């Protein structure tokens, strides 16, 4: 899926993560919650892939599954040349330093009874044999890297603000020099003015250490800022994946179009002129997904074929993938008519 030469750092093929539902007195297996249902994507070295979607679409589950925090149902995941989809726990543990995670809620992901130095130093204790002073030196380096004052090393998480706590979480993720970091809504719990600080920090660190990010977020405007390529998820599937500017300027899938249209514009004049696509209804349950296209229950363009046949996720332009029956085959064939369509709102 990558257009650049060489192997992508992360390769995901046909990833499925189903959670079984048990019911009745015999706890019979009555169905599955298909949180992630057959997704494939590549993440190139030192790029940021944004993964966007509404709550419950499976983006966080996908992020966790890619790091093998779950035992996946099906599919393959290759990180830096190693297939990790089926390796056992002990082996996985040795692979962990390469891939790390930054969590959404910095309050819940930091142990309240450990000092900052303890939290940031814990991965070093687990995975490296350093002396106490070497470890402290490394903790100080990391604190400098994320912009925390060294004198805070002996304080506890509750003494910090949300933005600073997120910095502690980032320092911990960086401790083992990872190549790949999954950022699961790292800014969702922060204030607007603090969000920008953390996003800038993530960008600086990426440049400094050559990091590769999978940036999971529901904030489309922030993803536009940080990501190089963007994947849009809906009900466990990727409906569109494209380079950032392509996706934001010429969204092809009706869901992406509706999602972008729903984001309010911080400009009263333009906002008043803009025409919104208002989707009706809610996202169906992932345990009982519709037949055919997952989006057919809310899609303004849905026709009979959408309720019968699941559209294939395919490349419609160079690097631009989407899963919709009406893209690429019928009216939207080349770039020109689509660009024209964008002009009349």
């Amino acid at each position, binding site marked *: 899926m990558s257009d650049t030469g060489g192997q992508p750092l992360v390769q995901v093929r046909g990833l499925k993560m189903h959670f079984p539902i048990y019911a009745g007195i015999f706890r019979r297996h009555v169905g599955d919650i298909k949180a992630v249902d057959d997704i494939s994507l590549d993440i190139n070295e030192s790029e940021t892939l944004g993964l966007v979607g509404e709550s419950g679409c499976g983006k966080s589950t996908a992020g966790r599954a890619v790091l093998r925090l779950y035992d996946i149902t099906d599919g393959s995941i290759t990180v830096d040349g190693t297939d990790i989809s089926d390796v056992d726990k002990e082996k996985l543990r040795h692979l962990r330093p390469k891939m790390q995670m930054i969590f959404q809620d910095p309050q819940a992901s930091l142990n309240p009874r450990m000092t900052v130095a303890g939290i940031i130093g814990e991965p070093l204790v687990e995975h490296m044999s350093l002396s106490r002073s070497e470890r402290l030196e490394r903790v100080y380096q990391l604190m400098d890297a994320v912009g925390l004052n060294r004198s805070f090393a002996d304080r506890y998480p509750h003494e910090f603000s949300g933005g600073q706590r997120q910095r502690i979480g980032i320092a911990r993720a960086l401790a083992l020099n990872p190549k790949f970091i999954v950022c699961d809504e790292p800014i969702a719990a922060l204030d607007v003015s603090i969000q*920008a600080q953390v996003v800038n920090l993530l960008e600086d660190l990426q440049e400094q250490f050559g990091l590769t990010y999978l940036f999971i977020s529901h904030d489309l*405007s922030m993803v536009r800022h940080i990501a190089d390529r963007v994947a849009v998820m809906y009900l466990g599937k990727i409906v569109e994946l494209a380079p950032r500017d392509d996706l*934001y300027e010429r969204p092809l899938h009706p869901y992406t179009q509706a999602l972008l249209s729903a984001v309010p*514009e911080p*400009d*009263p004049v*333009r906002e008043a002129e803009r025409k919104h696509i208002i*989707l009706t209804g809610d996202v169906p349950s992932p345990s009982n997904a519709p037949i055919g296209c997952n989006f057919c229950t809310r899609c303004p363009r849905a026709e009979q074929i959408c309720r019968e046949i699941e559209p294939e996720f395919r490349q419609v332009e160079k690097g631009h993938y989407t899963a919709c029956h009406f893209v690429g085959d019928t009216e939207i064939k080349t770039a020109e008519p689509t660009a024209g369509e964008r002009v009349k709102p």
Partner: protein
Amino acid sequence: MSENGAAVLDVKDLRTVFETGQGAIHAVNSVSFDLKPGELLGVVGESGSGKSVTMMSLIGLLGTTAAIVEGAHVNFDGMDLLKVSEDDLRAVRGAGIGFVFQDPMTSLNPVFTVGFQLMEPLRNHMGMSKAAARSRAVELLELVGIADAEKRLSDYPHQFSGGMRQRVMIAMALSCDPKVLIADEPTTALDVTIQAQILELMKELRRKLGMAIVWITHDLGVIAGIADRVMVMYGGQIVELAPVIQLFENPQHPYTRALLQTVPSVRGSRTERLRVIEGQPPILFSPPQKCSYSARCNHAFDRCLSADPKRIRIADGHDVACFWDPETGGPRDE
């Protein structure tokens, strides 16, 4: 601020102090504003800027144990809400002033049906019979776009999705035809496509019912789409108040200007690097003696550290509490 006598809500010099173990926290510091009939006043600011506390203080939702609410007056419907008895205040809440909270899951009671909760204010405030309240409840659910309203009355909150629950909350707030609706971050917990539905619904309800709305949010995009006037809060004070177009086109306060620059957009040009406001919002252990934004402000000069700027009028309906003048780049002459 209250030159307009027809205002439905007129707040003057409201102050709220919380007594905590670490000392008194001055959450709201001398806030004055008015709300005209039928207008939508947007309130923006970061968490901790005092936007919710201001609105909750007005209608006595903070309780009397930890919070001390003082002020010159809060005039609503011929009463001063700061002086009336608890019983009168209770009658105003729900009937005269409706409230929609941020999180629809925690603000609905999980053990009662939605129908019961919708009918409760109707029977208490309006004295309706059970049958009348029921038919009104159906009407309300239909008004906020819930299909199959009759049947859904007997459903419990957990049987509704987030967007639907927020619709129920709105229906409940509207049930007694309030003159003022206070919506505290009503779409923050919702997804964008659902947020778009709720915003559309609110616009429609405003056209139909014409009540005045106070809309608290931190999302400038939402404000741009629905507000008539915007009030920017920082450190428990109003730092700028202006008609929406004027605020976005000609922001005066450095905080407003910075806020507008930190938000990325999904449309238009994309900046290489996000502008940040360095530092943290303040926690005020005493009434402000200096400008509370001065520690994070790029334009602060000595006067900002020695006196707290008062709000001054710079154009029709536009006022700002700042000593710095963006036009000249120097101190504002008064």
